[in-house]
């Protein structure tokens, strides 16, 4: 009897344990000796993890007052959750890398973070907002014009294609519009060059968020959430319906394969299974390492009859946020570290090694001058897509509860592709359910 009773008591208590989300897990220790330690939590894996460690080490060696310790804290959602838990337990790290989806949540948490522009000014470090690529800086700037976080690794959506498969199918150039794309996909299928003409990673980011900016159309009202917290989704529009209809049609005809919600499409492309692919520009390194065929990169296709298209695509990736409640000396060290990170040389090196965007115009110029883009054709596509002047409709998508909204978009798309609802219903459901999330966010946000 004993054991059973223990079990049942434990069972429902465990339910609450799951809910007891935040128990703290910070390890930020006191500074050792004269050197002030700065904790940097991040989510970079593999080669990029090595790069981060090298950056931290090089900065620490470049002077004797501060030491930056880079700590890998799991995936983006994991490190963000841990940083928040640590903050609530009074143990926050100094710097945390937060993905773009979490931006609105961080922005709404005034008091928990220190605006990067204020940090630099207080510490007397040089900081020029206009040095940054507008589409990048604009994303992390409040509507009052203050830059809140430090742009670090930004990517955007691009189109990759398998040149070998294209040759086999008799296609001589990358499709520029969606109608050229459809023709190319049909050719690939018919010629047997590949049984999977096209797949994508991040369906919501590529096919709704970036798609809308690319066509200079709003994804959500209030300039995609930039103008106020009262934003609501605007996807129940003919342009989105047209695109969803096409995706459904292509999926039915075997031209488009839905791979999953995040990066599942990446491997389908570099394994050679799918001939065309849309995904993050930062997948470049991975594709280059793994693909056993000749591949090309080009801009996202667009609908040529839509006015204002192509405009620019939106950013993904992450930025660095500084947490509140630290000492003046520590903030000085963080400011110095950001100064180090924003030098054109470091920026250019990071861009060239990772496939992330150059964040300052100087870094772009430096990379161009070095002849990197000629040696690595296609690596400038993402930059070209981003470096144009943005419009109010194309600065990006910055909505609260974005994690849930993306889930909702994906769920409704999945139900549509499985044939359980038509595109119009799918979009209407996205709007209805997404708006519920936005209303909830509006109530708790502080600005």
């Amino acid at each position, binding site marked *: 009897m004993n*054991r*059973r009773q223990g*079990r*049942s*008591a*434990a*069972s*429902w*208590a*465990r*339910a*609450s*344990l*799951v*809910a*007891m*989300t*935040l128990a703290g897990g910070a390890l930020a220790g006191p500074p050792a000796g004269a050197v002030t330690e700065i904790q940097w939590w991040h989510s970079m894996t593999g080669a990029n993890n090595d790069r981060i460690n090298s950056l931290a080490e090089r900065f620490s060696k470049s002077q004797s007052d501060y030491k930056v310790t880079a700590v890998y804290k799991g995936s983006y*959602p994991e490190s*963000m*959750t841990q940083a*928040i838990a640590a*903050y*609530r337990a009074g143990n926050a790290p100094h710097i945390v890398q937060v993905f773009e989806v979490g931006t609105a*949540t961080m922005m*709404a*948490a*005034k*008091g*928990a973070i220190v605006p990067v522009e204020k940090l630099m000014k207080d510490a007397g470090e040089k900081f020029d907002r206009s040095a940054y690529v507008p589409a990048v800086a604009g994303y992390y700037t409040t509507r009052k014009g203050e830059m809140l976080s430090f742009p670090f690794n930004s990517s955007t959506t691009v189109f990759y294609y398998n040149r070998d498969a294209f040759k086999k199918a008799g296609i001589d150039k990358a499709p520029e519009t969606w109608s050229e794309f459809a023709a190319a996909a049909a050719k690939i299928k018919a010629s047997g060059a590949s049984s*999977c003409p096209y797949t994508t990673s991040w369906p919501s980011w590529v096919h709704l968020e970036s798609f809308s900016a690319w066509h200079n159309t709003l994804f959500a009202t209030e300039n995609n959430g930039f103008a106020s917290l009262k934003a609501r989704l605007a996807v129940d529009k003919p342009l989105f319906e047209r695109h969803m209809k096409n995706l459904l049609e292509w999926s039915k005809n075997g031209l488009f394969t*839905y*791979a*999953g*919600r995040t990066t*599942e499409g990446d491997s*389908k492309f570099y*394994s050679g*299974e799918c001939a065309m692919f849309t995904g993050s520009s930062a997948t470049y390194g991975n594709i280059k390492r793994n693909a056993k065929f000749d591949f090309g990169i080009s801009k996202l296709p667009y609908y040529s009859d839509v006015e204002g298209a192509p405009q620019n695509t939106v950013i993904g990736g992450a930025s660095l946020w500084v947490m509140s409640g630290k000492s003046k000396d520590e903030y000085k060290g963080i400011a110095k570290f950001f100064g180090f990170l924003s030098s054109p040389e470091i920026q250019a090196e990071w861009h060239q090694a990772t496939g992330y965007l150059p964040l300052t115009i100087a870094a772009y110029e430096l990379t161009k001058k070095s002849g990197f883009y000629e040696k690595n054709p296609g690596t400038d596509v993402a930059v070209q897509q981003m470096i144009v002047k943005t419009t109010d409709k194309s600065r990006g998508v910055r909505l609260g*509860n974005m*994690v*849930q909204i993306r*889930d909702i978009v*994906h*769920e*409704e798309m*999945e*139900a549509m*592709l*499985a044939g*359980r609802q038509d595109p119009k219903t799918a979009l209407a459901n996205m709007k209805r*359910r997404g708006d519920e999330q936005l209303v*909830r966010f509006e*109530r*708790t*946000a*502080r600005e």
Partner: protein
Amino acid sequence: MLFGAAGWLPAALLAPQLAIVLVFFYWPALQALFQSVFIQDAFGGSLQFVGLENFQYLFSDELYLYSFQVTAVFSIAVTAIGLTLSLALAYFADRAIRGAYVFRTLLIVPYAVAPAIAGVLWIFLFNPTLGIVSHWLRGVGVDWNHVLNGGQAMILIVVAAVWKQISYNFIFFLAGLQSIPKSLLEAAAIDGAGAWRTFRSVIFPLLSPTTFFLLVVNVVYAFFDTFAIVDAATGGGPAKATEILVYKVFNDGFKALDIGGSAAQSVILMIIVLALTVIQFRYVERRVRY
């Protein structure tokens, strides 16, 4: 006096265990109750009392109600299939065959595998394009694509969850079988009972305490310990087809940082499990013969 004449010693001996239960079970449970009536931003800076609104919101959401249905299907499938299979395996492993030790050891191995790894393992086998099982299935005319097909996604997580739990059930069933007196089985044989008759009329009733214990444990397992498998294998998709209640608690709380909503869900889960446990002890246990 709680401890009467026995004095302080029993209290002192119980104290460590009670402290653990209080700190790790009751305190979080109370926290969940408390947080379920508030909404707050992720950083806990703005705390607003909203009464039962979080619950109202949940029950007005047809997708949350759908999640109950998914959980029911999943839990019943995992418990029923898991118990049946492991009983069959234990029954056969109990017979004195050559290499019984090897089989028994092998059958216990999956229990040592972490749930997330179990999920990934099955995902590899069933990957729509690269997986070996989906390749075989295609050979026999089944188009396996759990990325879009909700029913197949459900099968996948049930298989993974059952596989993970089979060894645990197996150990208990095996122990139960070995404690059945040989004399009873011999008596049944003398009376002319066949293998099936012996099993049904002698073995199964004698196993009932074990079966009942495993039933409780497996229901709890299906409700709570499977979210890592769901997270690794399907992420609740496609279109919520595999979003069981506990996964939704985890997803809304840890990934989406909606603490009020997540707390409300865990309170509901607590009530469900409490109710289930009461039902099991009240009605099912009556049929158990110790």
